């Protein structure tokens, strides 16, 4: 299988800042894609949903992990799925949810999308290897 193209699904459970695991997940994905493999999708769960915030604004000498995820997903055309219930509890909201909840602001970044845990089941079914960070 080493020489074959492998489909990965990735579960990110850590915040973009404060712990390293989301950065590790990003480097893993970038490396897998560089080696010619495929990412079926990245599912953001638990603290991982904070990677989807468009308001993350680190200093200029630091990397912006949400930007990195967005650029990688656009370049290689894979979805960034963010668990909606984990998101709402942690203050990650898209325009539609904001409207439903009567919130005047939202913060979900493009191309991250809020989705249900069923989406994780689909990513689990679709891939050759599931990796959790």
């Amino acid at each position: 299988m080493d020489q074959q193209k492998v489909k990965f699904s990735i579960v990110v459970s850590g915040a973009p800042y404060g712990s390293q695991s989301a950065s590790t997940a990003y480097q893993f994905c970038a490396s897998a894609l560089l080696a010619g493999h495929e990412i079926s999708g990245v599912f953001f769960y638990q603290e991982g949903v904070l990677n989807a915030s468009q308001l993350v604004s680190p200093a200029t000498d630091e990397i912006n992990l949400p930007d990195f995820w967005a650029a990688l997903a656009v370049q290689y055309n894979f979805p960034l799925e963010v668990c909606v219930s984990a998101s709402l509890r942690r203050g990650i909201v898209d325009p539609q949810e904001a409207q439903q909840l009567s919130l005047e602001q939202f913060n979900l970044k493009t191309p991250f999308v809020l989705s249900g845990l069923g989406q994780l089941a689909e990513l689990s079914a679709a891939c050759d290897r599931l990796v959790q960070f």
Partner: protein
Amino acid sequence: MILHTVKTSPFQTLALHNCLNLLAEADTLLLIEDAVIASCAEHADYLQLQKISQQGRLMVLSSDLEARGVNNNIGKTCDYHDFVNLVIKHKSQISW
């Protein structure tokens, strides 16, 4: 065949200890993030880790060693490319 990834220091958590309790003979252990320190300094589970290293089943992510300015005494260093291949070679992964 399971790839176990451990990411916390054996001086701070029992993740490595609890992982070793479940590590089967066909499994591989990959130390990442703060857990790389387990390959540098002696701790309560160092002898067992050494045994796994001698069996060729202990890997250490080199970029995390470099980040912390340390070198491993046991285990085989690997980069992200190797990490990807380790995942491919194993049926499943447990993140500790």
